[in-house]
């Protein structure tokens, strides 16, 4: 009886006006809404781009190779997620678990990169050799002008980039922080499903929708990162933008 009930709820064709599942429709409406959430955050970031009055700028702190790696990890986690879903629909519970663990680990790795990045930005320090400064960014030039005026050998700054430092810090940490919070929530969701799969009858091919919804959320977080990586990181360092 319970099984029939479940199959009816999660089957391919539902007993609804459109034949579509309620929960899946809610998920898509939520994702459309969440687009506006990130849209407003990205708008704030872009409106304030280049308007910072002091402190490090994107060109000072961004490390594109490192962020490229973390972007790669998140893209791979999306692939892992679809493979978990595909395994489940083929009733391959073992495969499902392996791919779910790998997805969660890659998500956690991405968060690890973000923690590393945040902390290295916050502790960003500049040490300029006053006699041969080389090519300087605006921020470094400022430190050079202040610290090298009296014949010192070195000009240093340990201020780093904190949310309070300037508009870049404020908008960058808020935007990427909320993305990170989305990823973290996603990891909790994936691990919950993984744990459930060890209880008999909780995760089955008929109930693939439970996994499908988590997967939609996970991929959404991935596409938001695709936008952030281009708009914030790549455009951020590009001097002409």
């Amino acid at each position: 009886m319970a099984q029939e009930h479940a199959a009816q709820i999660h089957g391919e064709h539902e007993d609804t006006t459109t034949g579509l599942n309620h929960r899946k429709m809610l998920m898509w409406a939520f994702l459309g809404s969440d687009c506006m959430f990130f849209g407003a955050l990205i708008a704030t970031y872009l409106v304030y781009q280049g308007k910072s009055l002091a402190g490090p700028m994107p060109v000072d702190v961004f490390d594109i190779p490192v962020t490229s790696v973390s972007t790669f990890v998140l893209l791979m986690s999306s692939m892992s997620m679809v493979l978990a879903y595909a395994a489940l629909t083929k009733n391959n519970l073992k495969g499902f678990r392996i791919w779910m663990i790998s997805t969660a680990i890659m998500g956690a790795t991405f968060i690890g990169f973000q923690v590393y990045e945040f902390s290295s930005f916050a502790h960003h320090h500049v040490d300029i050799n006053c006699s041969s400064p080389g090519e300087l960014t605006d921020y470094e030039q400022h430190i050079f002008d202040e610290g090298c005026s009296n014949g010192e050998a070195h000009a240093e700054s340990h201020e780093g980039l904190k949310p309070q430092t300037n508009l870049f810090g404020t908008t960058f940490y808020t935007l990427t922080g909320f993305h990170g919070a989305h990823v973290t929530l996603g990891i909790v969701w994936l691990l919950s499903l993984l744990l459930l799969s060890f209880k008999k009858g909780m995760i089955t091919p008929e109930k693939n929708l439970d996994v499908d919804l988590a997967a939609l959320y996970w991929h959404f977080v991935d596409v938001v990162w695709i936008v952030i990586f281009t708009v914030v990181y790549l455009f951020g360092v590009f001097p002409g933008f």
Partner: protein
Amino acid sequence: MSQDLSGDAHTGHPTAGQYFRIAVILCVITAVEVGIFYLEFLGHWMIPILFVLSTGKFALVAMYYMHLKFDHKLFTYMFVAGFVLAAFVIGFLLILFGVYT
């Protein structure tokens, strides 16, 4: 309207192999993006190129990994409505704040 809403859903999901091929394409595009980023002679052309490439990635994930290509059109409308409106608001705010002047 309800008649055309009730079309068939799920006509053949991609296989694991296809998912893998899409992942490879995504990685290649990302690598190209990072590569282009270091080609300084491109100047301002870099922006539209990067834009098109990341839009491509976005579309691939949405269509294949999120199954929008195989699912009911309604889901696509719901998602695209939010996405397009967000892009519209971002663009309009940038114009109002004189970013392009």
